[in-house]
């Protein structure tokens, strides 16, 4: 089945099925951002669009005891959410795969495409992380 992001501009799914986040880099501040910024929020200088590293370290996590967000089903009794620090300084807030007890602060996490809805032969995905 084909996969595509539920919304454009945050991440893309490559030909081989691997997802990658799209962010911004400010050369003036030497700072990366996610999601894309219109300009550098520190220097007000232009930014360039870049792909961000797919692996990072779990900074914090929680388990939300609700399996749904609107029409999107997440988990069975609930779903995990984490903050992941990428090696370039970006902190991403996203869903994380697994159940309560699966996560430890400091563990390595890898970006995943998480299907939340099927339309015809296409899975619409958000992005998230799973223990690497």
């Amino acid at each position, binding site marked *: 089945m084909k996969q595509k992001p*539920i*919304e454009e501009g*945050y991440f893309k799914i490559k030909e081989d099925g691997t997802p990658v986040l799209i962010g911004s880099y400010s050369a003036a501040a030497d*700072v990366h*951002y*996610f*999601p894309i*910024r219109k300009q550098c*929020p*520190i220097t007000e200088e232009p930014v360039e669009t870049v792909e961000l590293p797919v692996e990072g370290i779990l*900074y*914090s*996590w*929680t*388990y*939300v*005891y*609700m399996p749904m*967000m*609107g*029409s*999107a089903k997440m988990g069975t009794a609930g779903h995990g*959410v*984490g*903050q992941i*620090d990428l090696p370039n*300084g970006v*902190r*991403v*807030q*996203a*869903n994380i795969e697994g159940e*309560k007890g699966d996560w430890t*602060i400091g563990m390595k996490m890898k970006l995943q495409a998480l299907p*939340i*809805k099927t339309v015809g032969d296409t899975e*619409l995905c*958000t*992005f998230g992380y799973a223990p690497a």
Partner: protein
Amino acid sequence: MIDDVYVIGVGMHEFQKMSPPVRDMAYVAGKAALSDAGIKFKDVGALYNGYIGGGMLEGISYAKDFGLTNVPITHVENASATGSCCFRQAVKSVQSGDTEIAMALGFDDMIKMGMGMMKAMMGETPKIEQIVLPAAFFAMWATRRMHEYGTTEETFAKIAAKNWNHARLNPYAQRRADHEVTVEEVLASKPVAYPHTSKMACAAGGGAACAILGNKKMAEKYANGRPLVKVTGSQSKSEHYTPGHVFLGAVVGPGDLTKVTTKALYEKTGVGPKDLSFVHVHDAFPIEELMYYELMGICEEGEGDRLVAEGATSIGGRIPFSTDGGLTARGHPGGPTGLAQVWDATQQLRGEAGDRQVEGANIGMIQMMGAGSICIMHMLQREG
């Protein structure tokens, strides 16, 4: 022209889970504040309406219930900080000399707002910005805090139980338990987002609150033998960049936004943390209140847990927080929340807070956050 500004009247409609129409609550709170001040609506020179939900021009429509007086009306919205922002605009209006009396009126029904949002989202593909819930954002603060400082779930439960028990003394609070709420009871309530439980989460509901501001001449004219309540400082800040800044989510923003805003307020007023009689904060979850103890300089970094263990932030303690029950138990309808803080602070400083009175209350500090990205703070001081 810079005038000194005073709170000359406050009023509330009870915060409730099942509340009457918002329009009715707004009228009750507004009339209560006008009556408390001893004035008529025709005396008001500017009206600021604060609401998050509701339709277009709702505030203008509701104002007609008070009278048709040519008064300028402005709608203010700043997420959870809506009521505080409304109050700040009214303060500025009087301070600038534009008017002698201004009215800040907040009203909302968070439950109806939430149902409307969920209904709109059902069947729709969710937006990436909406997928991480506000409850998750605050819970991740808590998990990180536990990792860094060894904070326990019991500490969070103690803060929540304290606020539930403060609310028992507030006739307008949404959650008024018929018994002393225990730490065990808070921990045993339904889990929401680890480590937070439902009794730690702010109470969503409906309500309205109002504050009327005046210059010194008006404050003295309508004092009616009561001490004056002066607004000695007003600060509002949005985010600044910090390493690890989070940009994506319903609630984002660096924790130390409160530190920066508090510092500016302390500098402007010449007041320090040791001078404070009580504090109101945006305690949507207890991790916030715990963090604010430290970010406001009430104690050193990492010492907040000890403050809780000692009971220092309870009424009767060294520095009571959320004396009306806070967002946890007084409730958080949205627009009126920051104005409910002003209602309690004014009663405290006048010595009219009854069973929840902080002895010798002289200076109160009030803080609200809006979507984690806006911090609005005020300093109120008793005069006379």
